[in-house]
């Protein structure tokens, strides 16, 4: 009964390649996110989608393109991979709540290594 799942778990690739990471949530949430965790374990938001609409884009290089085919899925495509893209990428989801905070639930992460 995985709430937020990501594939693949590990991704090792050469510089310059294009790769995709997939995320699915079965919590019925309407908002999904991509975060990047660097080697110092700092977790930083990249994108957020609400009902398939992009609502947060945190100055991420345009080599990164998120796509949300429906509100249960948010994929991340990365073009022309660079060494500095090596990190752990986490997907998260939450249910929008205009009057209160939204608890975000995280997936297990995708460990990307660019050689």
């Amino acid at each position: 009964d995985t709430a937020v799942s990501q594939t693949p778990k590990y991704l090792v690739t050469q510089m310059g390649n294009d790769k995709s990471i997939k995320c699915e949530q079965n919590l019925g949430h309407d908002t999904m996110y991509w975060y990047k965790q660097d080697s110092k374990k700092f977790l930083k938001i990249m994108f957020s989608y609400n009902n398939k609409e992009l609502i947060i884009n945190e100055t991420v290089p345009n080599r990164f393109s998120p796509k949300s085919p429906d509100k249960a899925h948010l994929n991340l495509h990365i073009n022309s991979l660079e060494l500095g893209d090596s990190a752990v990428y986490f997907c998260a989801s939450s249910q929008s709540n205009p009057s209160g905070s939204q608890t975000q639930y995280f997936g297990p992460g995708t460990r990307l290594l660019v050689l």
Partner: protein
Amino acid sequence: EDQVTQSPEALRLQEGESSSLNCSYTVSGLRGLFWYRQDPGKGPEFLFTLYSAGEEKEKERLKATLTKKESFLHITAPKPEDSATYLCAVQPLLTGGGNKLTFGTGTQLKVEL
């Protein structure tokens, strides 16, 4: 810009030795402050949300408290299974959408027998 600072960076405790982790924050209006636990190789696991100064929440050996400038995660009589990285994050009051969490760099806790 929202900012979260956690201390200490690392903490080593003996089993049963209680202690506290600190999370200092600056935010332009607080919607919520979150505590997560992260085990090696896994995603952050939600622990608590605190909304206003004076609020406290408890779960087993953990108790989170909140003031206007900081939050503490108190660990009472910890066990080795409490070993993990504890992350603090703030969610600001925003207009026009967006539910960005700004995280601290975490406190790595190790509890030894």
